[in-house]
């Protein structure tokens, strides 16, 4: 991997700092590594105390871990961000148009742009709700679009997350940590604030409330509970939105109306930001064995008495088999070329693609079409003979379950590791909110970093870490936004000065 031309977010290709980031390089040069290390330790100690943890499935001992945090930020210029924003808007509009179409008229299938059987026979196609039009015609209110970069202006969409994308709490908490630990960076750079996200999310939820409750809708966040890997984020968001964090047992449906059980009796619920997968939402409609779901929820949704965010059925849009058709889908609905290209993708369900894949396993990344979180994935160049042979057998047995992509030379970013500073591969997940009347993209996102040398797998479940992502603004536009940043400090109180307590933290 190392012999390829790899683009570095700070140093470009040749090792010369990118002009707009010279100030960052100077800062890195004059900050001793020991000082960076101290700040890093303070951040992680604080994350642990606050309990910003995630669970790793299948690991008993380390049931709660913190995601490693890196203090060196990744920086986007105002120009880069402006063009990314246009591409993201186009993509999320197209995803919503596509969902509305396939759960409606199905024009795109009649016009032969996407094979009908790929949609209609896809396990992600939610037949039980296929005839329901969601409130205001929006399916995917919250999308996390995973981007990778290979050159100065070469961004690719790696994955669309249109179900229940997570990670946005890290965008906000990482920024809080940076404001405390590296305040000088914020005087060097006009960094746009990210703490407008909770307000934007709340107005997104409110914008799809049933008309009956349009003035004062009751919104709730539905979580699978404290054992879920993203529970911290669920409680963080509910807290910052000022809405109740509910579990299925707190809700009941009577006469197609959703109620939550409170100490002063039932309260009617209008909008549910659900962080539970479709399959578990309603045991009467989806998996009957779901303990996490609310019986009758889909009937209430069908009756228009409650809005579900995201709407059921969005999984079809981020299915990896559909992903390969996204350039056509974007063109079909937007009338123009996709501003953000896809990574070249071989659909192993097609015989030629399969034979190409089998011949080039050592070079390719192979993914399960319905996998996520870095599980069920082969990175050819860094895998052992055995792993490759296991995937070869699996591919031959069920080719339709896989896609393959060339191994990209993901950009790197200077990162603090044991030996000092070293380049590590990164990706980027911005969060896009689709309201009834428009789209909001918070200037920031989740930068994930593969901490192991040469590794391309950034998923937290696979040992990846996170960085803050700076989006620079113009000095002039920052003036008007600085007021929004005023309430930032409520998120992390005086923690970073405390040493960790209690021995082996």
């Amino acid at each position, binding site marked *: 991997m190392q012999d390829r031309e790899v683009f570095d977010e700070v140093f470009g290709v040749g090792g010369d700092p990118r002009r707009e980031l010279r100030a960052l390089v100077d800062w890195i040069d004059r900050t001793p590594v020991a000082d960076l290390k101290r700040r890093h330790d303070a951040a992680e100690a604080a994350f642990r105390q606050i309990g910003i943890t995630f669970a790793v499935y299948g690991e008993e001992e380390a049931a709660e871990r913190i995601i490693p945090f890196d203090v060196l930020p990744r920086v986007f210029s105002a120009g880069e961000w402006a063009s990314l924003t246009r591409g993201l808007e186009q993509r999320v509009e197209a995803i919503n148009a596509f969902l509305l179409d396939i759960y409606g008229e199905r024009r795109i299938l009649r016009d032969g742009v996407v094979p009908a059987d790929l949609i209609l026979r896809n396990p992600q196609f939610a037949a039980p709700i296929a005839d329901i039009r969601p409130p205001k015609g929006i399916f995917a209110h919250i999308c996390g679009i995973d981007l990778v970069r290979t050159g100065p202006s070469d961004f690719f969409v790696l994955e669309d997350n249109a179900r229940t994308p997570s990670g946005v709490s890290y965008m906000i908490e990482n920024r809080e940590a940076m404001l405390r630990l590296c305040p000088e960076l914020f005087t060097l750079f006009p960094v746009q604030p990210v703490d407008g996200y909770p307000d934007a999310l709340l107005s997104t939820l409110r914008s799809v409330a049933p008309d009956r409750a349009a003035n004062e809708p009751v919104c709730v966040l539905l979580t699978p509970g404290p054992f879920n890997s993203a529970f911290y984020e669920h409680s963080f968001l509910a807290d910052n939105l000022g809405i109740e964090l509910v579990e299925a047992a707190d809700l009941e449906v009577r006469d197609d109306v959703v109620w939550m*059980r409170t100490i002063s009796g039932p309260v009617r619920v209008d909008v549910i930001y659900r962080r539970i997968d479709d399959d578990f939402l309603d045991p009467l409609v989806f998996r009957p064995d779901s303990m996490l779901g609310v019986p009758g929820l889909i009937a209430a949704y069908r009756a228009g008495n409650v809005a579900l965010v995201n709407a059921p059925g969005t999984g079809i849009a981020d299915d990896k088999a559909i992903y390969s058709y996204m350039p056509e889908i974007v063109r079909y609905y937007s009338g123009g070329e996709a501003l953000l290209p896809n990574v070249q993708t071989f659909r192993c369900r097609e015989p030629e693609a399969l034979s190409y894949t089998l011949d080039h396993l050592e070079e390719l990344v192979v993914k399960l079409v319905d996998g996520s979180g870095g599980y069920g994935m082969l990175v050819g160049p860094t895998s052992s003979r055995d792993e490759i042979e296991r995937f070869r057998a699996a591919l031959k047995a069920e080719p339709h379950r896989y896609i393959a992509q060339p191994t990209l030379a993901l950009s790197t970013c200077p990162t603090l590791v044991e030996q000092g500073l070293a380049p590590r591969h990164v990706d980027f997940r911005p969060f896009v909110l689709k309201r009834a009347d428009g789209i909001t993209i918070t200037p920031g996102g989740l930068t994930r970093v593969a901490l192991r040398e040469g590794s391309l797998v950034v998923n937290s479940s696979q040992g990846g870490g996170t960085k803050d992502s700076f989006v620079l603004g113009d000095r002039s536009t920052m003036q008007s936004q600085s007021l929004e940043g005023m309430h930032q400090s409520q998120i992390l109180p005086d923690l970073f000065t405390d040493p960790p*307590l209690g021995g082996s933290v």
Partner: protein
Amino acid sequence: MLSRTAASLYWLGRYVERAEFTAQLVEATLRLDQLAARPAGSDAWSSALAVAAAGVDVGAEGEALSPAEVAQYLLLSTANPSSIRSCIDAARHNARAVRTALSREAWISINRAWISVRSRQHLPDSEIILTLVEEVKADARGFEGALNRMLHNEARALIALGTAVERANGTARLLDVKYHLLLPEGEPVGGAVDRDQWTGILRTVSAVTAYRWLYRQGLKPWLVAEFLILRDELPRSLMASMERIVTLLNRIGQRTGMQGEADRLARRQRQSMRGASIDALFQGGLHEYLGRFIDDMSDLDRAISQQFRFT
């Protein structure tokens, strides 16, 4: 407020108080144990066990446990549902489920206690035990301090209600066990044994100096009993706990419109205590009185969960 949230807050209050109570008990027991040259130390650990783990069968074959084993059992055992470790685990589990109802400071004090208790596996000597006990007490105080800086809403009142119910229970059990065990037939009241034992009780409810301020006659068992049962100046007394329970139920009732059986039971209990004298309690049998009180508290606990639809 969600019913589930209400239940978690109430239990959060109970578990933190229980952990702190056990910490105080262990601290007082260690102190007593150090006097083992005198007769007082011999039964210190077995009576601590009887207070903190009532009804639990510890030594599987009935063999006597060493003091170190008892300390381990009371502090760190996961098999003991009332050990500090178990209480802190349960408190944190409840706190985590209702984080949105807690201030960040309140959560952090629980999480910090959890981190420090989890990092301990063994308790090799009394110094380590004392360090752990001090940490738990400091975190419990930190939690109470954080609560006092939270909004005065029903969330805070429910946690405080759990604390008060648990406190009444703990003090009643402490007094019952000690009285029962510590006044063996024929032992002269006021002898050396008594003195150390009764100081140990006061230490458990952090009231050694407070006692001296209120009672000038020196340590008398019946005065200690009066102090712990009827004097509302002592925050851990049964009387103060009952006053607090009535006030908190009243406050929650005003905010939610939910009043009922729990209010009635609490007011009745307070009323009968206000009219009681320690002489009358002794005449009717202190052990019987404390037994009835503990039963009444579990009725009250049931009434609270019904009134606020915990289940």
